[in-house]
């Protein structure tokens, strides 16, 4: 029963990781931009959400709407001000630029919010659970998983069938050729970043409801997002979802073997896949 429980908890955890990973799949997987601030932006949104909730007494779903919209705006600003200048074949400039921004952002958040951990009042949802056979399953994790699935399906459909998705895929394949075909790369990239950070709004709300957030947490979310995208395969939206599931299950099963082994198990699975199948599970050769 331990293993089944571990599997189910892992899938639910994967639902949260998928929400970090989707934005990363867009930016890293499709645009080839390394955005070190990805995790910090999620924390920033979460901290803003917690402050809004306590200042204006907003419930979690109102906070969600605000954070997703705010995330979109932040994404556009990030792309226009910084990332547009470092898009290109060489990943080093975008890595260094976002690294510097990450340090600045983390410490600015530290100054504003201090190192205290905070969480979002969930009105009881975080504690509620229901019984499935012999197992107890939390209500919140199921909501997180369903949201993740809907977001993934929506994003994958957008990339495959909409004008925006085609333009983004074209710009990622060959930005000059895309421009020659009429695509405005700046607009398309801004849209992609807005989408990526907007999705983080969901992750921000769920993470702060299920657990606590503090300014320095960004690095962990970042590493899980990268791992999920690489496990799943670059350029694949469902790949990021699958990678998040693999990561969540590895961590959860590892945790049940030994509490100190959980995260380590996830990293070892990541390194194994990197060694055996670097293009990822759903990646093209």
């Amino acid at each position, binding site marked *: 029963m331990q293993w089944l429980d571990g599997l189910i908890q892992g899938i639910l955890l994967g639902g949260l990781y998928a929400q970090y990973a989707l934005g990363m799949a867009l930016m890293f997987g499709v645009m080839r931009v390394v955005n070190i601030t990805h995790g910090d932006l999620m924390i920033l949104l979460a901290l803003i959400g917690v402050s809004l909730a306590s200042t204006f007494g907003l419930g979690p779903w109102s906070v969600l709407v605000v954070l997703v919209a705010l995330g979109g705006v932040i994404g556009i600003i990030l792309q226009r001000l910084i990332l547009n200048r470092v898009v290109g074949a060489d990943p080093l400039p975008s890595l260094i630029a976002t690294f510097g921004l990450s340090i600045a952002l983390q410490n600015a958040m530290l100054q504003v919010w201090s190192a205290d951990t905070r969480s979002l009042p969930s009105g009881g949802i975080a504690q509620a659970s229901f019984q499935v056979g012999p197992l107890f399953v939390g209500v919140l994790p199921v909501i997180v998983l369903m949201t993740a699935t809907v977001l993934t399906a929506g994003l994958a459909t957008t990339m495959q069938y909409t*004008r925006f998705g*085609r*333009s983004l895929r074209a710009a990622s*394949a060959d930005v000059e*050729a895309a421009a*020659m075909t*009429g695509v405005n790369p700046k607009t398309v990239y801004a849209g992609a970043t807005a989408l990526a950070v907007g999705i983080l709004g969901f992750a921000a709300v769920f993470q702060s409801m299920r657990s606590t957030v503090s300014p320095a947490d960004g690095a962990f979310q970042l590493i899980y997002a990268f791992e999920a995208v690489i496990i799943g395969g670059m350029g694949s939206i469902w790949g990021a979802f699958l990678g998040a599931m693999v990561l969540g299950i590895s961590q959860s099963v590892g945790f049940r073997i030994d509490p100190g082994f959980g995260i380590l198990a996830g990293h070892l699975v990541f390194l194994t896949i990197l060694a055996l199948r670097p293009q990822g599970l759903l990646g093209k050769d």
Partner: protein
Amino acid sequence: MALLSTHDLKARYGDFQALYGVDFEIAAGEVVALIGANGAGKSTLLKSIMGLLRVAANMVRLDGQPVGGSQPHRMVARGVAIVPEGRRLFAGMSVVDNLRVAVDHAALGRGDAWTIERIFALFPILEEKQSVPVQSLSGGQQQMVAIGRALLNQPRLLLCDEISLGLAPKVVREIYQSISSISKNGTAVVLVEQDVGLAKSASDRLYCMLEGRMTLTGRSAEMSREAIGEAYFGVSHAVA
């Protein structure tokens, strides 16, 4: 009035000057060929027109308006499309998706003279392979996709950069037949070509370039081999 003209066009790649004051023009519905040896500046000229190279605004004029140095996607919106050197298709996307990107960003107000169905009629093999990833097509088929993609931008002016390169003669004939029907539809076409004979026979007028300058221009039918030879290689390179 010329549809597109360049005036004393100068262009550089960093420290290297590629064009030294080039004058060029094309009228609506014309087919103009651009020939010259490797490195003469033919692709550079097309890139300058398309906005892929920064040049002074007044050096390139469309409908008499200065457009030099515009963003490439703005040139597409104005009705200029390019079949680039090396095709530059969107790898990882299917044939039909490659075409759809062009449809998504077609120049407005031009109606829809070109549709995906008409491209399939022009190049039937593409209809058969429409869902296939574009990188798995043969060179000739990829060239057809590249031309189709440019046409679906509904251009008034189509720039073709060495579309016969690396293709079998039979395929080249097929493609040039399609050029002729494109021109009959009213689209002006610039053909950059290495094959002088092909360039002569396919065009109304012809320009020859050498080391960043125009060395010869005139009606294709009236040009002599000697004149072209001198302009192509330069009189100073003449042997004996």
